[in-house]
């Protein structure tokens, strides 16, 4: 490798990431930069869609959970006759997906099965076909997050609770982003309840958890104010009705041009 080749390689490396720079130094380098741009344009893969990401995660977490459960089962059943074990393992294998899903419902942040629970939520969102469906699910998931925080604090798991509190602002953002006009009343009620739970949690929170708790409270309050603002916004008037109102303001309906003589002749 010559020093000339190395300096050209260094220049190419910079230019590839900085097409806006324009000046390429030489015709040869310019051709290589253009080739790299063509390759990116024609062959670079697109980012993974969210649905695909969620689907793979759900599959992976299910299989991890299945593996952990079957190891536990294997230990517990090791003294039983082999044929009974084989039957049970087969039954467990067939039933496991549902079992893992059921077991994960009670999982809390920091638990092994919590990934399964969140993965299943992602799958539910992927499967929801309407914006109203998304919004309803996101509200339910938001309630779960708050319930998880309360349960964690009741059990004294403040480290996990603090992490969950730190993630709470995102929950509010998602609720607001998915919000539909018809959901505003229920969202307001939910956020009021969230505030009540968080205030309750704050009564026993250690000082380390206070900053995260304060931020969660601020965000619940911000969410409630935003929902209230939306509730009191004037509702959009359906197009047909708007036309009628406009006509009323404008006074009696005018006869369309060309029909005057026809109407008059009918008299």
């Amino acid at each position: 490798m010559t020093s000339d080749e190395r300096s050209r390689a260094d220049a190419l490396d910079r230019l590839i990431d900085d097409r806006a720079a324009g000046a390429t130094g030489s015709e040869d380098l310019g051709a290589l930069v253009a080739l790299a741009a063509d390759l990116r344009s024609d062959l670079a893969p697109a980012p993974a869609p969210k649905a695909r990401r969620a689907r793979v995660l759900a599959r992976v977490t299910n299989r991890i959970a299945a593996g952990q459960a079957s190891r536990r089962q294997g230990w517990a059943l090791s003294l039983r006759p082999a044929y009974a074990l084989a039957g049970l393992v087969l039954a467990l294998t067939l039933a496991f997906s549902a079992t893992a899903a059921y077991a994960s419902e009670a999982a809390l942040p920091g638990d092994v099965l919590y990934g399964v629970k969140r993965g299943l939520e992602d799958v539910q969102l992927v499967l929801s076909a309407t914006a109203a469906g998304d919004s309803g699910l996101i509200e339910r998931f938001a309630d779960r997050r708050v319930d998880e925080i309360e349960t964690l604090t009741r059990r004294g798991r403040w480290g996990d609770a603090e992490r969950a509190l730190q993630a709470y602002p995102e929950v509010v953002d998602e609720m607001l982003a998915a919000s539909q006009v018809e959901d505003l009343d229920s969202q307001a009620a939910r956020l009021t309840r969230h505030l009540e739970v968080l205030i309750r949690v704050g009564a026993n929170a250690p000082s380390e958890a206070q900053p995260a708790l304060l931020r969660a409270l601020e965000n619940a309050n911000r969410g409630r104010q935003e929902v209230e603002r939306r509730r009191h916004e004037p509702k959009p008037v359906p197009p047909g009705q708007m036309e009628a109102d406009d006509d009323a303001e404008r006074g009696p309906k005018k006869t369309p041009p060309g029909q005057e003589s026809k109407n008059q002749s009918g008299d």
Partner: protein
Amino acid sequence: MPVRPVLMSEKPIDADLVERARAGDGEAFGELYRRYFDPIFRYLCVRVDRAEDAEDLAGTVFLRAYRSLDRYRERGWPFSAFLYQVARNALVDHYRKRPRESGLAEAIDLGTGPRELDDDLERAERVQAMRQALAELPPDYQEVIRLRVLLSLPTETTAQWMERSPGAVRVLLYRALAALRSKLSEPDED
């Protein structure tokens, strides 16, 4: 030459996440998944023919990675490079089970890619020529083009994944693109 242990998305807390995941913290593993699913999935997309295969393989990669956490030791080898190695092994198994139909065999591959060929014949021919020329390059030339150009990974990350120095990657990329350009300018035999 030892590779410098610093990285694009390899924030220092990757090591902490790995430790927590190893101790059974599912959330920590979920965070690692969120960080690295996209580059790994896109890498698999350029290595196999169908997005569905890339999806299956991505699942296999993260499952194997989870099960191999006890064997992973950072020691200057970032977690993303570990995932990349797991992905390469999964691809070997994939090809073993399902030999490529294209006849380019070990040419390994850009596959069909995620973008469908459109009706523009000229563009379709150009894309096909690029794929063909790329598949005829030596494997390390193909790989540096995939990582550095198609996935737009930074040089440092490419170096870590390929276990080379950044300087070596820059020279490799220069040679790979020059070789590709030369192949593309060869007269068509047909």
